[in-house]
Every structure is written in structure tokens, then in C-alpha cells.
């Protein structure tokens, strides 16, 4: 018997062996493993053991027919937990969440494609109202707070943007942080006192001989809110800036793309990396360009503060105060027993932006352009032969990817109210790439999940997880003292390598991308500089 390709390697042989067993044996083994793991974990941390048992039970339940078995057992579990919550300390939130999860998992298959995202969206929008009442997760600790949520949403946006370049068009971009930086600095320039300049209030006296306090010489205001009187500089409404940042960044993407996109895949990666390294350096050294004294970026001190977003008093009054006039001086509303804070408003705005990004990304995926991207990804030569203009299509993928990176950067700068060159390291590019890879290149849902998980880990989860490891894992009385935040990059490295070796298509891959990875598309670099321009 010859060995088929899927029999090669320990992993494939194990999988074949596993699949050759009858379903009942497989079930029994799986349950046995779950119970054994739970018993072992019980000695480390009780809640972790319960979580494993519960997770195993939910997974097994999903195999049962919906009516009556599953409903009955789910009801029993929720009821049992409810009784526990009544008599002892089990949190009610766990009962409710589990109930909600069961309800969602009972949605019939045909309507899942819209019902599941809708349910997630509703849960996400309502998050600020209930997160403080939620139970503590095993290992991960408390649920992330709302500012963490904003951070997660911004990075999810960027991941979806990068997914257009890496996932759809198959171009490796190692300098995505350059687009993020462009967006952030666009906000910083046009919504701060950066370009105020100085002049003497007395006419015709130079700043050196001025006896009075200097005043800003340039002031321009367009729909901005929360600007103190007397502050100079450009102040444009943040909503206009989001669009402007997207357009400037997309233009920038085209500028980078035009000369470089004809390069082979790995050369392109290195050129984007080069841009990603040059841009932060310009930002860092931009407080005094080659000794000309022109202050573009305020150097390592960054630009701060930036104007807060807001709709202004007129719109705010028109909508009865639903749209806040100034995000930072917000809000008096007390909805459902929850005092709405300014981070909540930022959070909801971020959700809106993310929904917009995801919507555009979906529409692009099945558009003429999106299909051309996929064709290029799978086989450039064939695509070119079918009449796909390679350069134009690739440049568009760059521009669209850059657009969302720019919008996300602009919004994030407004949220933090500052921009520092230190925010734009190569690590961030790899971090976003890691989200796309982990989630599954080309599949928006996968990318969203990967981005949410990794960005959560980055700001919140690593700290709490590290704490848990330091307190719960011990040999005798010796506790480790690991600063998990310090090893962030290493953790991403391990994720990248493990995912690439064992599941190169990611956790939730698009079916098409998975097939490419397993059949091994030979993207032979037939289109390099020698032939560039042939399509003109």
C-alpha cells in the first residue's frame, strides 16, 4: 500500500487511527479524558475543574437531538445552577449566561448565519451594563473592563483591515503599523494645538522682542468640540478626521504599493517592513527635521492632548442628549441602573466603526474586486491570463486595507488623546498579523475572534493569567514569579509557530484558504520585475 499524503506525520496518523474507531468508543474516550483532566485540575483550582466539566458537557450536549433530550438536559443544568445560586454562592450571572448560550445554540441552522452575529452584537453593545456583575473566569480572572473593550475593538478593526491584504489578496504586509501611525498622526495634526505657532499680541513685534505673553498665531476651527478658547492650531471635527485619516492612509498605501507591489511576495514583505521601521523613526526625529527647526511630530514627546470627539451642542440638543456633545464631559444619563461613562460612549462608537468595517469587508469579499484578489492569491499567472489587472488589483487591496488601518488609528488616537512614536513598533505589526493568522486568514469571523482574544490578552489577560499562574502553579512551596507581560512577544511567537505548524489555516479558517494550505498552492513567483509592466 502506498502512503497517501494525509498519512504522513504523527498528527495525521493519530487522526486516522482516531477516526477509524466507532463513534461510541470515541465518545467514551473523550468523556474519560475530560473527567480525568477535570479531576487533575481540581487539585490546582476548583473553578477551573468545574469549567472544564461544564465545557465538556456543553460540547457533548450539542451532539444530541434538540428535542426533547437537549432541551431537557440544558434545562436541568441551568435549573441545578439556579438552585445552587439560591442556596449558596454560585453567581447568578453564570446561570443567566449559560441560559443565553443554550438559547443561542438552539437557533436552527438556516438562521444561524444572521442570528449568531446579531446575538453577539447585542451582547457586545450591552456589555458595559452587565460586565461588573459577571462571575470570575477561571484562570483569566475578571472580565475585561470597558476601556479594554475599546482597545480590543480598535485592534479588531485593524485585524479586519489587514485581513484584506493578507487574507484576501495573499500579500504579506509586515508594516501595517505604518498605516495605523498615519491615521493616528492625522488626528493628532488636525485636532490639536500642534501647528499653533506663536506670535506677539502687539502687531509688528517679533517673538524675540515681545514683552507680553505670546499667543498662538494660527487657529482654524471646523466643528470641533471641547477646545479651550485661546488655544491655537487646527481643530477639525473628529468625524471628518476619521474619513480624512482613512483617505490619507489609503493614498499612502497606494504610494507605498505602486513601486513595490510588483515585487515577489517575500520581497514585498521586507519592503513593507522597511516602511514600517522608517515611519516611526520619522515620527521620533520629526521634531526638528534635519535641523530646519520645523516641528512636524513633536518627536519622542508625542502630540497631546487631542480634541475629544463629540457632536456639539446643537446636534446633542436636537437628539435630546442621546448623541453627547462632548465625549469627555459625558454623560448624565443613568440607564438601567448604570451610570453611562465616557468610555462607554467611546466603546459604542468603536462598535459602530467595527460594524462598518466588517460590513465593508464582507461586501468587498464577494465583489468583483474581492474575487480578483482571491484569484491572485491562488494563482497570479492564471489570474493575469484571465484578464485580472495585477497591479491595479493589488494596489486596491493595499488601499482598502490601509483605509481601515487609518480609521482605526485615528479613532484610537482620539480615544487615548495622545500619539507617541513609541506606539508604532514592529511588534504591533506582528501582533496584528498574529491575530489574522490565529483566527484564520481570509475568514472575517475567525479574524474577529483571534483579534478579540489576542488584544484582550495583551492589555488585560496576560496580567491576570500571569497572576493566576504565579499563585496556583507551584512545586512544593516554591511559587514561580513570572512577569507574563514581559514575555508578550515570545507568547505571540509561540502562537505563530504552533499555529503555522499544526493548523496553518488558523482556528476558524475559510474553507477555501484551508484547502490551499493543504494542497499546497505553489505560488511560483512568475510575476517579478522582469515582467512588470506587461499588463499596463
Amino acid at each position, binding site marked *: 500500500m502506498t502512503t497517501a499524503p494525509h498519512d504522513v506525520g504523527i498528527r495525521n496518523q493519530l487522526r486516522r487511527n482516531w477516526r477509524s474507531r466507532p463513534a461510541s468508543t470515541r465518545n467514551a474516550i473523550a468523556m474519560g479524558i475530560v473527567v480525568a483532566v477535570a479531576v487533575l485540575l481540581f487539585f490546582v483550582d476548583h473553578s477551573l475543574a468545574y469549567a472544564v466539566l461544564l465545557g465538556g458537557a456543553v460540547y457533548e450536549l450539542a451532539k444530541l437531538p434538540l428535542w426533547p433530550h437537549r432541551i431537557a438536559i440544558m434545562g436541568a443544568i441551568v435549573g441545578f445552577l439556579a438552585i445552587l445560586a439560591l442556596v449558596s454562592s454560585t453567581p447568578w450571572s453564570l446561570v443567566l449566561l449559560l441560559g443565553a448560550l443554550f438559547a443561542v445554540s438552539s437557533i436552527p441552522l438556516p438562521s444561524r448565519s444572521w442570528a449568531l452575529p446579531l446575538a453577539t452584537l447585542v451582547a457586545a453593545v450591552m456589555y458595559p451594563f452587565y460586565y461588573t456583575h459577571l462571575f470570575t473566569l477561571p484562570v483569566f480572572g475578571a472580565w475585561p473592563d470597558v476601556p479594554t473593550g475599546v482597545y480590543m475593538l480598535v485592534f479588531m478593526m485593524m485585524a479586519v483591515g489587514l485581513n484584506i491584504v493578507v487574507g484576501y489578496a495573499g500579500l504579506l504586509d509586515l508594516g501595517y503599523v505604518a498605516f495605523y501611525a498615519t491615521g493616528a498622526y492625522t488626528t493628532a495634526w488636525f485636532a490639536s494645538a500642534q501647528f499653533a505657532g506663536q506670535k506677539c499680541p502687539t502687531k509688528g513685534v517679533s517673538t524675540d522682542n515681545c514683552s507680553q505673553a505670546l499667543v498662538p498665531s494660527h487657529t482654524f476651527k471646523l466643528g470641533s468640540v471641547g477646545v479651550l478658547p485661546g488655544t491655537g492650531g487646527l481643530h477639525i471635527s473628529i468625524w471628518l478626521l476619521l474619513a480624512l485619516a482613512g483617505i490619507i492612509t489609503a493614498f499612502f498605501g497606494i504610494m507605498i504599493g505602486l513601486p513595490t507591489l510588483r515585487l515577489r511576495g517575500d520581497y514585498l514583505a521586507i*519592503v513593507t517592513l522597511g516602511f514600517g*521601521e522608517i515611519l516611526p523613526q*520619522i515620527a521620533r526625529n520629526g521634531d526638528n527635521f534635519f535641523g530646519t527647526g520645523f516641528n512636524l511630530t513633536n518627536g519622542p514627546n508625542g502630540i497631546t492632548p487631542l480634541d475629544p470627539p463629540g457632536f456639539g451642542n446643537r446636534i446633542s440638543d436636537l437628539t435630546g442628549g442621546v448623541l453627547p456633545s462632548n465625549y469627555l464631559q459625558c454623560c448624565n444619563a443613568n440607564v438601567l441602573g448604570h451610570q453611562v461613562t465616557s468610555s462607554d460612549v467611546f466603546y459604542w462608537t468603536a462598535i459602530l466603526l467595527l460594524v462598518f468595517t466588517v460590513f465593508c469587508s464582507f461586501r468587498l469579499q464577494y465583489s468583483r474586486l474581492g474575487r480578483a484578489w482571491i484569484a491572485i492569491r491562488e494563482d497570479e499567472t492564471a489570474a493575469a491570463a484571465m484578464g485580472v489587472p495585477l497591479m491595479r488589483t493589488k494596489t486596491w487591496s493595499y488601499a482598502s486595507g490601509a483605509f481601515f488601518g487609518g480609521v482605526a488609528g485615528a479613532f484610537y488616537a482620539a480615544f487615548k488623546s495622545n500619539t507617541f512614536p513609541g506606539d508604532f513598533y514592529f511588534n504591533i505589526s506582528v501582533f496584528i498579523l498574529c491575530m489574522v493568522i490565529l483566527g484564520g486568514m481570509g475568514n472575517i469571523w475567525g479574524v474577529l475572534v483571534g483579534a478579540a482574544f489576542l488584544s484582550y490578552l495583551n492589555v488585560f489577560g496576560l496580567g491576570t493569567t500571569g497572576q493566576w499562574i504565579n499563585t496556583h502553579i507551584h512545586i512544593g512551596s516554591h511559587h514561580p514569579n513570572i512577569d507574563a507581560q514581559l514575555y508578550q*512577544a*515570545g507568547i505571540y*511567537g*509561540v502562537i505563530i*509557530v504552533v499555529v503555522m505548524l499544526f493548523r496553518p489555516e488558523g482556528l476558524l479558517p475559510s474553507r477555501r484558504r484551508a484547502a490551499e494550505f493543504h494542497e499546497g498552492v505553489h505560488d511560483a513567483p512568475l510575476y517579478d520585475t522582469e515582467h512588470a509592466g506587461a499588463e499596463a
Partner: protein
Amino acid sequence: VGVLGIIFVLVIVLWLGVNLVKTPSDFFEVTAIGITNGSVYALVALGYTLVYGILELINFAHGDVFMLGGMFTITYANHFFGLHSGQGALIVLWVFCTLVLVMLTCGALNAMIEFVAYRPLRNAPRLAPLITAIGVSFIIENVALAVWGPEYVIAPDVLPRSDVFRIGTFDYQWNKLIAVIITVPVLLALVYLVQHTRQGKAMRATAQDKDASAMMGINVNRTISFTFLIAGSLAGAAGVIYALYFTSVKFDQGFQIGLIAFTAAVFGGIGNLPGAVLGGVLIGLLQGWNEGLNWHSPGSDWTQSIVFGILILILVFRPSGLLGEQTPEGG
């Protein structure tokens, strides 16, 4: 492009000329530093070029192997050989032993990385091993961070700093010369290995066509492992020179220097061994001039931008580099 390129080179030559006339001793001083830097870059760039020539993979982890080479040097020198200044002629022997040991360690490590991380992806789309390489690079960096800590690790200062010769105000110290002295025999050995041995012939054949070489009875996997071994030991040698010359290494230096060395490899023509050396020395010189000259030089704040600017210009206008690339696809 041709005209623009010539004008560009002329401007640089003019700038150098003015600097030479204004401050001749500074000029020679930074040129000497540049050549020393350049020899380190050349050794690292050779590793990139060897691996790219055979696998068409930009081995991002290579720079970090170089950094580990520096770290190993410090550890071996301190704990195995007890290297310290004032040991007299014995120092030559100890430095040689350190060099051999570090080269072996780094070579083995690099071959192991290939075996674990790149070999399973031999038939995957080309971007898969590239992404993996970035992951490996991050892992190595963090291992170094965990083992050697986040600060600069100080190497024993053993290279003599007395003058080799002195012309006017320009003096050339031994430590700069030693860096070059270590580099040259390593390069000669490499050229001999690739051009005149059976294994070298196998490497060149595999680089040209893996399937055909396999049919000719060449063990392709072993040849690739061997290439990684050689590349790693070159990085190790560079690490020894770097650690002893600069006397300090930090865990995150490898990636930056690796990128600069990769630029050098592309500059000279990737896959091309003499090209990598030429590129390395040129980049080293440019960096030295930029950081050391006074008249209208952008200064060390801009070194990185200049190096990457060169990389981008080369890739866009002359992707085959100065001496032409030698890869299976580039011919």
C-alpha cells in the same frame, strides 16, 4: 534610472570628498570603524544569502541566532575560559576556543530551528515559513530575555586597544584589526567549502533544483540542514566578533542587526556570496560615515531609515543587487 543612480552616487562621493578634505582624520577613523562593522554585517549577511539561495526563505530568526552567538560568547568566556584582560599571548588560544565553540553551538541551533520550524512547511505556500520565521525570531528573543535578562550583558574586554599604526592624527587600533582578521579566514573557508568540496557542490545543486538534485542521489534534506549549520556558525562567528569588539550585547539587538545584514545581502545580490560580503562592507561603511562624519550628515538618529531606504530603493530599482542574484528563479 541609470542616470538618477549615477547622480545619486556622485552626490554621495561629493559629500564624502568634502568631509575628507575638512576632517581627514575623522574620515579615516570612521572608515575604519565602518569596515569593522561591515565585517560583522558581512558574516551575518552570508547566512541570509546561503539560506535564501537554497530555500528562498528570508530567515528572520537569523539575526537572533547572531545575538545568541554574542550571548554564548559572553557566557563561555566568563564561565568556561575565564577570559579577562591581561592574560598575555594565551588570550589568542582562548579566543580561538570560544570562537570554535560558539560557531558549533550556533550552527547546531540553527540546524535545529530548520528541523523543527521550517522542514514541516517545505511544501506549504511560500509565506508560511516566512511567518514562522518571524515567530521563531520572537521566541529566541524572549528566551534570551529570560536567560540573560533585559539589560546589556557585558563581555570581558580582552581585545588590545593599542595602535597598530599611526599616520598623523589617525590611529588604527588592534581591536578593529582583529575583527577583520577573524572574518577573513572564515570567509576563505566558506568559499573553499562551497566551491571546492563535494558537500558544497551538493549545496549549489540543491539551490538550483531540488527535484533534480534528489534524482542525482543528493540527500536534499541533509544538504539543507548542512546549509543552516553553516549559516548558523557564520552568525556565531559574527556574534563572537560583535561581543568582543563592542563588549556588550542586548537581547533585542539581533533583529535590528539582522535586518541591516539582510539589506546588505540584498544590496550585493541575494544568493551571491561575494555580493553579501561587498554589501555588508558597504552598509557598514555607510553607517560609519553617517554616524561619524560632521559635515551635513544625517546622524545616527537616521541610520535605520537610511539603511531601509537603501533596501527599498534597491528592491524597487535593481532587485538583483549590485553583483546579481543567484537564486533558482533569478538565474
